[in-house]
């Protein structure tokens, strides 16, 4: 079947319109809150108004007389019914107790659920929630990770003894020697990567029907990581995982952050069982901003970079404080995930990072598009830019010279990761063409003295995909994780129609379409003829433990599993057709809905006949064929990984590295500090494409998330620990009018390590954050301040124009 596996086939690699679109365009999709359920109860959480407080008393008595009141769930009940959710960090922070309602008699962030109430309607549930009285004793709180590590700081989790969730040093190469001997050393006291999230337009929705007859929880709602969610819930509720079924249908975005849904889902499940009725929780926008998952906020201190006189960057060192908020829900995996891209795009030889994950009284962080890697890559890219400006190197040449070069692939990083393929210089060249670089420089010169300043910036970044879960052992040697798999299932129904289901859970990435493309090629059908399962269903046996959509992997793992599953089905069809047509299985080819004998197309069996014989007339088949064939191909794809070297913190942590090189031209109004993006170019390289249109769409989406984060979006907290952006007024997600038209180009460097040369993509690596910071720096010029923040609203730009960061940025040599 090798011929049918290649990317030169009829459908794979082509821009094919999406199978998902018709239902979504006709308002016939089924999102979390759409599913009609009889006898449905609605859940509302009563949440903490304090950043940190002791719960003195909870009074729900007023609720009991309200019409439509069904019941409630209290922290004391949760304490009895559940164990704390599984924690990933080692001692002492493994003492953290995280439950679906505030644990240990305390609340730890504004918006933390304290009581769950149920009513017969949305309104009834809200009315009930409004009557619940919780008596709090406010406690001192901490919302700044830099303060949280001070000895006298308030403790978020009393049982741990400090606010440090994880603490470790990564030391590859010999940065001390490099800093001692390098011609140039740049030192920066502090840089800051701010808090934001992709804030999917559909907030979380969880519907749980507990079926008492079979003691099973049936969940419906977008779930990005179904088996891990099942495991978290099963362990906490002491309930068999196989008696928890999770079904996702249409899914209005996750971008990583919905990985934390197991927490509220547990409360909804407990209420459904307690009240004997299906229950739905429809998260509000404000709830989502409080607790739906923020991206990691990170402080970088004592940053030092060593550079030679010819402009070669040797390496860098820094101390990181990663603010994970009040609970470690996927954390502290962020403490190791960034090391997938330790080198960023560059030939670094030395890197030393002291990394600490810090609890604060803020909403918990969850993985968010570009998870943990974009923070590190922003830092490296920012330092590259600062070094170029301060040492007088041309920013384009400086990057070109330090990029990993095309002939160096596969390229091993300082920590043993293997960059599979790429062509960064060509990508940069194309990105500069997209923004008409020379012309942009001309515009910049002409703008001098007009009150507007023009800046040009480059963002170089990688999108590492397909995790080796063995990296979890680098943060806790006892975690029983390694490698990575995904599942897929392809079957032929009783009439010969073909049905596929993948372990991945799409929320807009077009998995139904790309699956249909590759399966169509292998079966000799068209994508229209392939019936693709919408969403996911844990009861369909397509999933593995790692199944889901996160960490840029579907094109490798999801498609790999579907290819393997289809291969099994093809083999079965060949066996059946061969025995009926009197040929060998190897002589059977699949074309136009028939199994036919190669070179003798008269001898053919339609798929309907193949299915009819297997399903209804097995006596027509030789026993050994009938015994083997069920017309269900179920397979896994296993990514080829080994367990990392825990001692030296080395190993191959991800299989593929897509790259994104962005370039932008922006204009700053000197009077207002307003930024206007004039031109924006993106060059993507994610190996062999499966559907170029879908890739381009992912690049657009990731780009706008990054632009919006750099200029508009900030989950800021005030001194009282109140979130200042708990709705879309205060959290400005970019609109169409805020954005320039986007210019796209691509480079194709097939991955040598994956089934069809494709690489995972979609997260994008946060390139706009790098490019915009660099462009602002370019516009501000040598007489102004240095861009040390990833978030640059107008007031900060005005500050930069006035200078003032000199003392914190030093060229030592």
């Amino acid at each position, binding site marked *: 079947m090798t011929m049918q596996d290649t990317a030169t086939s009829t459908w794979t690699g082509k821009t094919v319109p999406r199978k998902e679109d018709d239902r979504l365009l006709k308002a016939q999709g089924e999102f979390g809150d759409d599913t009609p359920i009889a006898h449905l109860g609605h859940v509302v959480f009563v949440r903490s108004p304090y950043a940190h407080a002791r719960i003195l008393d909870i009074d729900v008595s007023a609720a009991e007389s309200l019409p439509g009141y069904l019941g409630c769930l209290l922290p004391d009940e949760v304490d009895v019914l559940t164990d704390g959710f599984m924690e990933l960090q080692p001692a002492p922070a493994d003492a953290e107790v995280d439950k679906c309602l505030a644990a240990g008699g305390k609340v730890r962030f504004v918006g933390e659920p304290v009581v769950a109430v149920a009513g017969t309607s949305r309104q009834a549930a809200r009315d009930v929630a409004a009557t619940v009285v919780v008596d709090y004793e406010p406690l001192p709180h901490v919302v700044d990770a830099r303060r949280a590590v001070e000895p006298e700081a308030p403790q978020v989790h009393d049982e741990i003894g400090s606010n440090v969730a994880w603490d470790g040093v990564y030391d590859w190469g010999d940065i001390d020697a490099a800093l001692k001997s390098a011609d140039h050393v740049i030192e920066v006291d502090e840089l800051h990567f701010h808090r934001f999230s992709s804030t999917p337009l559909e907030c979380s929705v969880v519907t749980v029907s507990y079926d008492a007859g079979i003691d099973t929880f049936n969940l419906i709602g977008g779930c990005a990581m179904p088996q891990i969610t099942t495991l978290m819930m099963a362990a906490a509720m002491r309930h068999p995982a196989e008696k928890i079924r999770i079904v996702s249908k249409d899914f209005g975005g996750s971008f990583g952050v919905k990985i934390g849904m197991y927490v509220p889902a547990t409360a909804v499940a407990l209420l459904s069982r307690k009240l004997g009725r299906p229950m739905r929780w429809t998260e509000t926008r404000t709830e989502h901003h409080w607790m739906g998952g923020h991206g990691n906020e990170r402080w970088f201190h004592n940053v030092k970079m060593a550079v030679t006189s010819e402009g070669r960057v040797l390496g860098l060192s820094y101390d990181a404080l990663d603010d994970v908020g009040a609970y470690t829900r996927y954390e502290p995996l962020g403490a190791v995930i960034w090391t997938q891209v330790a080198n960023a795009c560059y030939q670094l030889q030395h890197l030393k990072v002291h990394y600490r994950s810090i609890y604060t009284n803020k909403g918990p962080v969850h993985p968010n598009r570009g998870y943990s890697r974009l923070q590190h890559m922003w830092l490296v890219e920012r330092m590259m830019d600062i070094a170029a400006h301060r040492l007088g190197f041309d920013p384009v040449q400086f990057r070109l010279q330090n990029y990993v070069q095309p002939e160096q692939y596969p390229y091993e990083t300082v920590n043993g990761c293997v960059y599979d393929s790429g062509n960064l210089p060509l990508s940069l060249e194309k990105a500069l063409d997209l923004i008409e670089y020379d012309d942009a420089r001309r515009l910049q010169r002409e703008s001098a003295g007009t009150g507007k300043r023009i800046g040009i910036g480059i963002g170089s970044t990688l999108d590492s995909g397909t995790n080796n879960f063995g990296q979890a052992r680098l943060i806790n040697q006892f975690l029983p994780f390694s490698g990575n798999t995904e599942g897929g299932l392809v079957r032929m129904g009783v009439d010969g129609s073909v049905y596929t289901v993948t372990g991945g859970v799409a929320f807009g990435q077009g998995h139904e379409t790309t699956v249909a493309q590759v399966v169509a090629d292998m079966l000799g059908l068209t994508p229209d003829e392939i019936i693709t399962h919408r969403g996911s269903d844990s009861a369909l046996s397509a999933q593995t433990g790692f199944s889901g959509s996160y960490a840029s992997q579907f094109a490798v793992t999801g498609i790999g599993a579907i290819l393997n599953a289809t291969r099994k089905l093809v083999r079965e069809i060949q066996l059946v057709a061969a025995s009926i047509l009197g040929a060998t299985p190897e002589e059977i080819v699949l074309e136009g809905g028939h199994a036919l004998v190669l070179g003798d197309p008269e001898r053919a069996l339609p798929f309907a006949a193949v299915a009819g014989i297997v399903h209804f007339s097995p006596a027509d088949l030789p026993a050994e064929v009938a015994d083997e064939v069920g017309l269900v191909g179920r397979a896994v794809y296993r990514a080829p990984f080994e367990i990392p070297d825990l001692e030296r913190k080395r190993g191959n942590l991800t299989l593929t590295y897509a790259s994104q090189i962005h370039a932008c031209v922006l204009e700053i109004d000197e009077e207002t500090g307003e930024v206007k993006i004039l031109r924006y170019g993106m060059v993507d390289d994610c190996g062999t494409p499966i559907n170029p249109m879908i890739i381009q*769409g992912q690049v657009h989406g990731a780009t706008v998330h990054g632009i919006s984060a750099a200029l508009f979006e900030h989950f800021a907290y005030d001194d009282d620990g109140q979130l200042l952006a708990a709705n879309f007024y205060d959290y400005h997600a970019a609109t169409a009018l805020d954005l320039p038209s986007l210019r796209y180009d691509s480079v194709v460097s097939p991955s040598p390590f994956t089934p069809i040369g494709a690489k995972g993509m979609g997260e994008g690596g946060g390139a706009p954050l790098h490019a915009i910071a660099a462009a602002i720096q370019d516009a501000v010029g040598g007489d102004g301040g240095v861009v040390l923040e990833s978030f640059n609203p107008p007031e900060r730009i005005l500050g930069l124009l006035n200078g003032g960061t000199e003392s914190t940025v030093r060229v030592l040599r």
Partner: protein
Amino acid sequence: MTQPQDEMLPISVTVDGRLETGQVSSRTLLVHWLRDDLDKRGPKIGCDTGNCGACTIRWDGLLVKSCMVLAAQADDTRVETAASLAHDDGSLNDLQACFKEHHGLQCGYCTSGMLMTATDLLESGEEITEHSVRRGLKGNICRCTGYENIVRAVRAAAGHDVEKPHGAAEEVAS
């Protein structure tokens, strides 16, 4: 806390060309009545504050966010949701077909609202330019597409010759 007393009001509304009647509480939002009582899946809820536009419908010909209207206010009016846009035989109308061709949707959650806003813009008689489309859509948030392909789809529906999705040109040639 006193027990809320909800006045129940009878309403009859023509929704997507069909007369629908019901009893609603005086504080029920139109979006909730359409979704919960009629299973109309066009209007979606993406915020609590009228910012996102996912719930956009036409109300007696006027473009509105249905989370900003009480169901009781809709008595004796006409409501059109995105479910009314396709042709009677179920095929996509021009605008929908342009969204599909130009990949103007990913998760699809904003799509119904976008379609209603774009329909209104295209019928408004306003000159269609890239800028007027961006301005027209600014009350609708999309978190997936970056708007680029939505803007292209709307312009294509207005008859503009816009760039095709990456890789599509080769398809046409082959």
